């Protein structure tokens, strides 16, 4: 039991690393998941494409794993809806897969408020997926506030990239 959990965790970490690079490239350009290559486990082999139902498959199958927000805002606009619709479509194909939505804020806010704001954003994305027919029980949320920026500069463009809600599959 313990060993299995460890394996699952390692997989999740490896896959998240892939997801981290994914947004800068076309999903089709993704390298194969490095699971087998890392030699951590012999449990999974990656033949030619992402394992169906995996995080890598999720990333390869959707428009984007994240939606973006305006300053201090948490509403989901039409573009976000279209992105989330592709996530919902994938989730319907894999009804046993659960996801966590991570809400984030930019650095130009106070710490506690940004945790609350990230929670609001993650919940907006969750509600949108639920409205598309995904069982809310499959979706958990977490807010990181301003603690985990992705763009590391201090420009308007950086802040726009950090005001985000990211959907991550729970493997």
């Amino acid at each position: 039991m313990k060993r299995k959990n460890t394996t699952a965790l390692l997989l999740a970490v490896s896959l998240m690393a892939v997801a981290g690079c994914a947004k800068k490239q076309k999903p089709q350009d993704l390298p194969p998941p490095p699971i087998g290559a890392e030699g951590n486990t012999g449990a999974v082999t990656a033949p030619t494409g992402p394992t169906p139902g995996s995080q890598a498959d999720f990333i390869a199958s959707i428009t984007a794993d994240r939606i973006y927000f305006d300053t201090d805002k948490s509403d989901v606009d039409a573009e976000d809806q279209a992105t989330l619709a592709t996530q919902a479509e994938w989730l319907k194909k894999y009804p046993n897969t659960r996801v966590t939505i991570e809400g984030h804020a930019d650095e130009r806010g106070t710490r506690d408020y940004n945790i609350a704001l990230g929670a609001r954003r993650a919940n907006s994305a969750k509600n949108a997926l639920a409205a598309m027919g995904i069982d809310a029980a499959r979706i958990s949320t977490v807010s990181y506030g301003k603690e985990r920026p992705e763009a590391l500069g201090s420009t308007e463009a950086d802040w726009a990239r950090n005001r985000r809600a990211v959907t991550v599959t729970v493997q």
Partner: protein
Amino acid sequence: MRTLPSLLLLAGALFASAASAQITGTVTDESGNQSFVVAIPPLTTPDDVATPAGQTADLGRKVAEIISNDLNATDVFTPKGPAGLRGIAMPEVTAPAFAEWEGLGAENLVHGFVRANTDGTLMVGCYLYDVSLKSEMVRQGYVVGPRDWRRAAHKCADSIYSRLSGENPFFDSRIAYIAETGPKGNRVKRLAIMDSDGANHRFITNGQALALTPRFSPDYKSIVYVSYIERRARVYVYDIASGRQRLVTESPNQTFSPRWSPDGSSILYSMSVGGNTDLYRVSSAGGGTPVRLTNTPAIETGGSYSPDGSKIVFESDRSGSQQIYVMNADGSGQQRISFGGGNYATPEWSPRGNLIAFTRVGGGAFRIGVMSPAGNGEKLLTNSWQDEAPTWSPNGRVIQFFRTTQGSGKTAVMQVDVTGAKERKIDTPVDGSDPAWGPILP
């Protein structure tokens, strides 16, 4: 873990003739505040011997440095020395060369000595004189273990500060804060504690889990803070002696922004339920049922008790932007008190009760400010790209906060007195944020 031994007060508070003495000859700055010129030559020693804390003569100079640094924290004093001042002989401690110090422009004079006792303790004698009146104002003696020699210096500075300013002491107190290392995208954040001047630093958590927003309990025995140890924000109480921590409330929701009630019996915190953040209160003993204090679709967070525990100041964006509100401790009577432009956040009620410190966001800057609990007399104390999260000294005269550097995201614990005249960086081994000032030590 050891507990801090209480300081032995030998000579008691001998204010002698000082009670009738008038303080004269003080300088007045532009803001109308009096500033006392205080000469602080190195403390002397009756016998220069080795101790676990160093030679007693060296300690005499270091104690004077700490006193000088402490007194320079507020606009009440203009300390001179110990650098550049001559040492004193033992008989001068009780019979100062007043004319000489007056000639140097000193209005007040600190003398003292460090003596190694035969039982291994140190005795620090601490004297304050009015130079022109040639009168003694403070005579204190502190007996400490060698490890606590700095506390004797802080106690001496506290006595001088209180005697001359009429304010309560605050130097002998501690800070909990977050020590930060690592790249901006993946900062390692550790709970850490230190003396009010940054000395005696100690890391508490190992950095495996993101740690945020600590607060010392009123008795210094525990720290309430936020940890992501279970991959989401949750409020824990960390027991310093045992190194164990426990959740303040079992909930599937994220909890954050914790504060103690002044008597330590309750913890005020924020909880996000379905994306909606409100303020809650729960017994700090654990196991109690949380009481919900706000109930709006807006974000309510950053709660802080008034010193008598009867009221709570907090921030809410119910008006469309972050603003500061005051309510009764049971959640009734909510009233907005901030009305300036931009956002107001992180309110903290002064231990004196007379002021609310806050972060004001606007015009491309995050600044620390103060206003009355009714919202009057707003005054901004700092001006920087990003200053936030004020915390009060135990006597309500000084504020610590943290400053973030644009671009690099590097952070530093900063300090400013409540007039805005004296701003300084607190030295920490690595970057620091979220300082929280504890009460004065007994």
